[in-house]
């Protein structure tokens, strides 16, 4: 039931009471605006830091060979620790709780890769098939390396989308999987194309089977890094696992177990948890401030509504004396307040989101501040909350005012 006349009456009242309308609207718009800025900034910061963790699974452990710094059993410090396939096999068979494991070696011969007349320098990374899981790469086409590739010393390669774009031009683009590219002059068959969400230098990679690399390019069984995942173990259990690995390596490679430089073990879960804890804290803080802002808005709107109704007591009395029902009075006041707060909330919403949008466009890309966006559902809920509380705050004095005896309201005492 749309009553045009009632709306004309409401709009006429709003138009003639500009300051009152502005004050009510401003406290709502400002509250919503600040909330969006706050939530958006928090989100932007979190997105930025979360991005830093992309490009590998969060339950991974990376063990890299280093150089000793403490004398041990007659050995002088400064000795390079060298990992071999035996270390890989030993860790794989003796350490409990490993989900998947892969060795890697640094390829430092000639990293030129070519296809037909296209050349490029990319990182060539020998590894086991499981590295796809640890590195969290997504297969776009074909497949990653498999066990048979490794065991049979196949000359196969999985290339990243960047490498694919660089080497395979025009008509060759579709034919990449199955064709041969030359790595340091040796032909390797492309078995798959993958994408990687990690930092850009990690996206400029090709992966080849580790034993093939050892046989074709290196001529020994050295590896440089062992990486593994820990399944769904707790942080404490993983901590124990790390200690066990450190002890085992110190016994085999003869270095002091306290020597943190001899081998370097990075436990990503620990880093990840610490950062996520920090963000839980920041989120809580953002929420507390946000709720505070909304409460300030509610108090502001309620105050204004109460004063507005008080100010209108006389008007209500007049309207009542000339035949307005209490219902029509209360409904008019409430419709008016809903209209003002809803419109103001919308304005605050649009301004806040607009500013966020402008910020993410105008600001140069900052590593730790990405895509600042407020949760729209939260913002809309907050607007609705403000509308409700404004209405609620106005309703009781309005009902009270509608029930007073006009002669008393209208008498000059």
């Amino acid at each position: 039931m749309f009553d045009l006349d009632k709306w004309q009456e409401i709009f006429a009242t709003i138009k003639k009471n500009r300051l009152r309308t502005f004050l009510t609207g401003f406290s709502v718009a400002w509250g919503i605006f600040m909330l969006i800025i706050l939530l958006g900034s928090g989100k932007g910061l979190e997105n930025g830091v979360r991005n830093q963790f992309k490009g590998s699974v969060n339950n991974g452990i990376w063990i890299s060979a280093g150089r000793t710094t403490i004398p041990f059993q007659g050995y002088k410090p400064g000795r390079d620790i060298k990992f071999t396939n035996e270390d890989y096999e030993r860790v794989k068979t003796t350490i409990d709780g490993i989900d998947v494991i892969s060795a890697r070696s640094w390829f430092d011969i000639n990293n030129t890769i070519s296809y037909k007349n296209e050349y490029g320098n990319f990182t060539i990374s020998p590894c086991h098939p499981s590295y796809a899981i640890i590195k969290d790469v997504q297969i776009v086409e074909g497949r990653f390396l498999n066990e048979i590739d490794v065991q049979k010393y196949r000359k196969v390669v999985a290339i990243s989308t960047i490498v694919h774009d660089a080497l395979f031009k025009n008509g060759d683009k579709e034919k990449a999987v199955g064709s041969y590219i030359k790595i340091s002059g040796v032909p390797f068959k492309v078995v798959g194309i993958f994408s990687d969400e990690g930092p850009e230098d990690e996206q400029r990679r090709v992966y080849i089977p580790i034993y093939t690399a050892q046989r074709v390019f290196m001529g020994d069984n050295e590896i440089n890094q062992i990486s593994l995942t820990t399944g769904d173990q707790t942080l404490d259990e993983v901590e124990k696992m790390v200690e066990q690995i450190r002890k085992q390596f110190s016994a085999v490679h003869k270095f002091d177990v306290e020597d943190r430089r001899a081998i370097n073990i990075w436990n990503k879960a620990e880093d990840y948890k610490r950062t996520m804890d920090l963000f839980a804290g920041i989120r809580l803080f953002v929420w507390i401030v946000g709720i505070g802002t909304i409460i300030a808005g509610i108090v502001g709107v309620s105050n204004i509504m109460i004063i507005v109704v008080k100010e209108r007591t006389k008007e209500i009395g007049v309207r009542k004396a000339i035949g307005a029902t209490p219902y029509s009075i209360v409904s008019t006041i409430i419709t008016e307040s809903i209209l003002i707060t809803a419109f103001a909330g919308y304005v605050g919403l649009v301004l806040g989101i607009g500013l966020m949008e402008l910020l993410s466009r105008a600001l140069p890309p900052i590593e730790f501040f990405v895509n600042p966006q407020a949760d729209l559902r939260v913002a809309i809920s907050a607007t609705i909350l403000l509308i409700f509380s404004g209405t609620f705050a106005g309703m009781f004095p309005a009902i009270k005012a509608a029930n007073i005896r006009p002669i008393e309201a209208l008498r000059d005492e």
Partner: protein
Amino acid sequence: MLELQGLHKSYFTGNNELHVLKGLDLKIEQGELVSIMGSSGSGKSTLLNILGILDSYDKGSYKLNNTLISNLSEKKAAHYRNNMLGFVFQSFNLITFKNAMENVALPLYYQGISRKKRNKIALEYLDRMGLREWAEHMPNELSGGQKQRVAIARAMISKPKVILADEPTGALDSATSIEVMDLFREINKTGITMIIVTHEKDISEKTDRIIYLKDGIIESEHIRKEMSYV
């Protein structure tokens, strides 16, 4: 037209009972021009509230136009107020953010008459009050007498049977008061019953019948036959 029988009204504030009207009997015929006089506390505003269906009473009966006014719903009370009664106040009580025409037209809004139509009618009534050129003016641009004439036009626009005036000349100078009283008399000649609450003797002397109220009962009545136009 208006008939009160044994009307009682008390107010309760905390534990105190204030017995304001103590068995009032009053009969006012259609077309009468009546004034109700009394000092403050005599119960005249309470009486006016009850006559205006703005308040209920405890005991007795109140008949308006042969309809018993008792235990009405707010909606019904508003309907009677809108159709049968017009109010004129001491401080005019025009709505400050509406112009003269919109103020006059407001009762018709609550009757559901379209904006265009009610504004046209309002202009006719303003014309009768000699205020047509002031139709677009806001209340704060009008003099006291003009404001009261706007308020009277507003009271008349719904063609009421009775106009209740609460100290209508209280805020006006004596010359303007006389003008307003002449206006009331003119309106009264069209058959509308006028009830004027006042404490000014000069004003009450311009009415046909004076009712003196004291401590919640009618103390005396004075009919001024020589002034009657009937």
